């Protein structure tokens, strides 16, 4: 069965520094991977997805993600963090027309 792991419950970074939120996956077949963000008391917002092709995927709000097939990873990155990026981030993988989510990573950006 498909699964996703987010090994860090929380990531802390200073404003202006680069950020990385980690995600590893386990799938049979081609991996279709997603990142979502959840701000407090809000629903999930789609950031980006990897389907095929270029391993570096660009998404909303300056975020990008790097797909690495050999390491089965799909890490979310941003070159310069903003305080407003503080939120809960979810990685997900498609399984039979459904999404399987990781447990989530809290990102805290401090000024």
């Amino acid at each position: 069965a498909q699964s996703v792991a987010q090994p860090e419950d929380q990531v802390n970074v200073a404003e202006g520094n680069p950020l990385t939120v980690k995600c590893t996956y386990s799938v049979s077949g081609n991996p279709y991977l997603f990142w979502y963000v959840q701000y407090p008391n809000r629903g999930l917002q789609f950031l980006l997805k990897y389907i095929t092709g270029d391993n570096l995927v660009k998404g909303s709000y300056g975020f990008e993600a790097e797909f690495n097939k050999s390491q089965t990873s799909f890490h979310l990155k941003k070159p310069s963090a903003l305080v407003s990026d503080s939120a809960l981030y979810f990685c997900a993988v498609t399984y039979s027309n459904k999404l399987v989510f990781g447990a989530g990573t809290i990102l805290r950006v401090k000024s």
Partner: protein
Amino acid sequence: DAGITQSPRYKITETGRQVTLMCHQTWSHSYMFWYRQDLGHGLRLIYYSAAADITDKGEVPDGYVVSRSKTENFPLTLESATRSQTSVYFCAAGSGGKTDTQYFGPGTRLTVL
């Protein structure tokens, strides 16, 4: 463009009562989904629907009932609420393909006393 709306946004109920959470989309996405969000578990799929009158179980369906008589609506019913069903519930919609994005509603925070 409202997208997906959920009602109520907050609900407090008592053990044993029946509760229905509503979900409505202004698009015409064929697939709709119900998830629950609990600390440490991320989002877990309760039920989903591929089209009107077609529903199927997800990972945690016990204690829940769904229906989909119209494409745009997908209500979730807790037939006899239990404290373990205290959670935040999210509805989502999408085209249903393996590469298609799901779009989420704002959520309903349910507390069962």
